[in-house]
């Protein structure tokens, strides 16, 4: 059964139709990429899947359960996490604290036990800090743990955001343009990190413009244009699809793949 299914998702903003009946599925354990020209509706699709927007029409299902209309934190509790196109770290908190927010779902302490620092809360906090620190080590930012999140470079902030998303222990991780602004070496590192994440059993769905990254790691590609799906399949197939070529290179050009 598909992990994530979208059925006929439609999103209108006033008179603008951002998504026009898009359907697709993501299988467990795969890395799926969504590509398409700017304005094709990719981030809107993400926002719908993770619950920040309620679609005008259509259904999204996670493991067979309908998640359309749920609040983002409810969807997060079902195992969906994400990173943002404009890295959305919490600038007034440290790097470690940012990742710790990712562990929020796995804590039980309420306002009262936190205020009183009850033993269960203290134990829980200690465990959370250990887990968050370990994640920071994995992405190679352990020494930046106490730095303010606002002061890091873009690549580093991306990694912190990834660590934060992984801290929620998601089953499905949505990545919004993870390679944007990264140089070639950083992109290679990213590809390795993402494969590593997938090998841990996390399904990845990402929006990306960087074709080399997409062709490198994606198992399947979904192509959107003007809010409509124009192709879906393995990279080789999508790459030679004439509709896709037309969208990216214009009708007249007929370029041999490579």
């Amino acid at each position, binding site marked *: 059964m598909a992990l994530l299914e979208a059925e006929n998702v439609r999103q209108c903003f006033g008179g603008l139709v951002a998504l026009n009946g898009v359907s697709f599925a993501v299988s467990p354990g795969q890395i799926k990429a969504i590509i398409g020209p700017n304005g094709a509706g990719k981030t809107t699709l993400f926002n719908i899947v993770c619950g920040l927007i309620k679609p005008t029409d259509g259904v999204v299902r996670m493991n067979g359960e309908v998640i359309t209309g749920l609040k*983002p934190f409810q969807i997060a509790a079902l195992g969906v*996490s994400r990173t943002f196109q404009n890295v959305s770290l919490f600038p007034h908190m440290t790097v470690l604290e940012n990742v710790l*927010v990712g562990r929020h*779902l796995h804590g039980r302490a309420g306002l009262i036990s936190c205020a*009183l620092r009850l033993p269960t809360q203290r134990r829980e906090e200690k465990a959370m800090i250990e887990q968050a620190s370990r994640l920071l080590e994995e992405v190679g930012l352990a020494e930046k743990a106490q730095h303010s999140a606002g002061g890091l470079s873009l690549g580093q902030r991306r990694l912190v955001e990834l660590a934060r998303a992984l801290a929620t222990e998601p089953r499905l991780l949505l990545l919004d343009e993870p390679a944007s602004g990264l140089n070639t070496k950083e992109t290679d590192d990213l590809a390795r990190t993402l494969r590593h994440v997938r090998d841990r059993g996390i399904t990845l769905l990402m929006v990306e413009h960087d074709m080399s990254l997409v062709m490198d790691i994606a198992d399947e590609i979904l192509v959107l244009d003007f809010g409509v799906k124009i192709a879906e399949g393995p990279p080789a197939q999508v790459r030679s699809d004439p509709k896709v070529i037309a969208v990216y290179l214009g009708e007249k050009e007929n370029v041999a793949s490579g």
Partner: protein
Amino acid sequence: MNTTTRIWPRLAAFAAAAIVIQLSLSAAGKVYYLTQLTMAVYYAIVVMGLSLLMGYAGQVSLGQGAFFAIGGYTSAFLTTHNMAGYRGAVWFDLLDKCGVIVSRKNLYDDTLVLTVAPWLAFIMAILLTVVIAAVIGYPSLRLRGHYLAMATLGFGLIIHCILIGSPALGAADGITGVPGLSVGGLAVSGKSAVRVQNYYIAWAVAIAVLVLLRNLVESRMGRALRAIHDSEAAASAMGVNTPKLKLEVFMVSAALAAMAGSLLTHYNEGIGPSESSAFKSVRYLALVAAGGMANLEGALVVSTLLVFLSLRGWFGTYDNAVFGIILIAIVALAPQGPFRQLGLWMNRYRSLYKPGKEARGGAS
């Protein structure tokens, strides 16, 4: 992450300062200063609660004065309203059997005045305020910035109107003759015999609140709050139940305001409708800003100091203007809060006047 180890030295410093101040004022014969300090400390509790809501969670509330007043008026009303006429009613006798009805002699005509026991009134004051906060907070906290501020202001004005227009609540004069609140051997009351005791009671309560709020802010819930402030969308996407948390914090800050209101009402032996005015609520806002928005200790210290000066009449007829100017000055000059701004200025001063370090390639 375990900054609670850092707090004990600071708490010790607070306690020491409080003791030193009390001893020197008593020695100097200026014990009436203690009264004003006590009042200032209670107001500072309201400010700490608002600091949690505004500084950490980022939600503007102009209704703290109203919550303070609801707490104070509930305590005042229940402990002064004579229920002797209800004797014989089923519910009254039930309450009486539970031991929550107290009696005292009316000074003027020797009749017996039966009221609710102050400790129960205190609990009811806080409960009522929390319930009202939940009812108002639920729809209000869905609103953004300006609109939340307006909604809480509107709520505050409604409460103010009701208080000032209700004869049963004393209308413009408020309620007077409120007895003291005794628990164990301690009494919160305005009698000069217990003045020093009350000074320390107020400080103890304030410091307890400080510790609890500090624990909260450093914990998972505190991080969730600060996350909401920085980016509500990202916080929600990470699993933080943002509407519930905002409402809970709103209720906590209302509860703190009500507690302060009730205790201060017992201390002052009365309360008036001016406590719920927009001026008061704006004042709390100014005090949070002056202490450094997300700075609990700053809120306690700065707020106690400024309110004390205000009560001593230092600002004269410009009292309200001072707080208005503080508001403007903080935002215009020190949006990060005065302490952080001072830190920033000092850094800039250091890098300006120590160019040698820069020339040698050292980090500033």
